[in-house]
């Protein structure tokens, strides 16, 4: 039943992605200033949104792990799996942001990269979560999950800084398209394809997040069984 549900959801997600692609390439009009290159917005911005959302989930998982580790060890393990899944899938989306951004920047600004606040804080965010994943991969011992949870909480503090960076400081990166005050916003003909693509990438992100969470839960069960067998031996 669970497999069937995941199968249906996967099919729905693929249909949404195809529809989002069609909307982005064939329905959304050309941008008057940037022409064709602005279509990167349909991958770049939804990927950033999904990355932020999943880093927030990782934060919730990290807090949950620290809060439950003494009294509810089974809940703590589930929270830890959520924290890891959120961080890892978040890094995947953040990597997409950091690669598609320079491709866009090269055509729009004439440069691949600049050390402005938005780009730098995003790179720092990526580095923090990559270090989180490296810690989880290479550190051993009973303290590893606690250390990872603490790093996950500190890492998430960078998310609002990234979000606010082009409001707080003058940046090469464009001013906020949404919620950026007077003059910000998007024409209706671009907004609808944009919203479809947000829905599609969010659905895709949730699909791989659930898969990653399941893999981690399975890993925890195997590790617990191996530890128990080692104790019994």
């Amino acid at each position, binding site marked *: 039943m669970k497999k069937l549900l995941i199968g249906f959801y996967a099919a729905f997600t693929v249909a949404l992605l195809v529809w989002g692609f069609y909307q982005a390439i064939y329905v959304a009009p050309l941008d008057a200033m940037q022409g*064709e290159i602005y279509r990167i917005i349909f991958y770049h911005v939804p990927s950033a949104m999904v990355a932020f959302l999943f880093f927030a989930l990782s934060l919730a998982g990290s807090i949950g792990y620290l809060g439950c580790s003494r009294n509810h060890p089974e809940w703590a393990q589930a929270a830890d799996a959520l924290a890891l899944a959120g961080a890892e899938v978040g890094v995947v989306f953040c990597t*997409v942001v950091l690669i598609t951004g320079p*491709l866009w920047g090269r055509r729009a600004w004439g440069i691949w990269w600049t050390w402005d606040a938005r780009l730098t804080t995003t790179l720092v965010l990526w580095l923090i979560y990559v270090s989180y994943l490296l810690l989880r991969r290479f550190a051993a011992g009973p303290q590893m999950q606690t250390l990872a949870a603490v790093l996950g909480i500190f890492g998430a503090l960078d998310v609002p800084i990234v979000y606010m960076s082009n409001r707080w400081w003058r940046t090469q990166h464009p001013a906020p398209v949404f919620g950026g005050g007077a003059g910000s916003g998007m024409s209706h003909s671009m907004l609808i394809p944009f919203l479809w693509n947000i829905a599609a990438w969010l659905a895709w992100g949730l699909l791989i997040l659930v*898969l990653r969470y399941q893999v981690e839960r*399975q890993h925890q069960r*195997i590790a617990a069984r191996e530890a128990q067998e080692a104790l019994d031996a």
Partner: protein
Amino acid sequence: MKKLGLGFFAVFTIAVLYWAYSGAFSVSAGMDPAAALDRKFAGAAYIVTWVIQLGYLAWLGFKWQAQKRDAARLDSKPR
């Protein structure tokens, strides 16, 4: 049978992505050079996005398979 299904799925996915790429980001001979370059860059972003996403999904699939083997190994161990 399962491997055949996975292989077919992989080939189908790559074919659909290539078809989408070649249809949407093709550059015609008389096109303005700047617009053609823009289209190539947008296409590159599309390719990179999907290579990263599908690469991660494939890695996740391999990890899942390895864990299933580990679980089966533990189940078959005499107690």
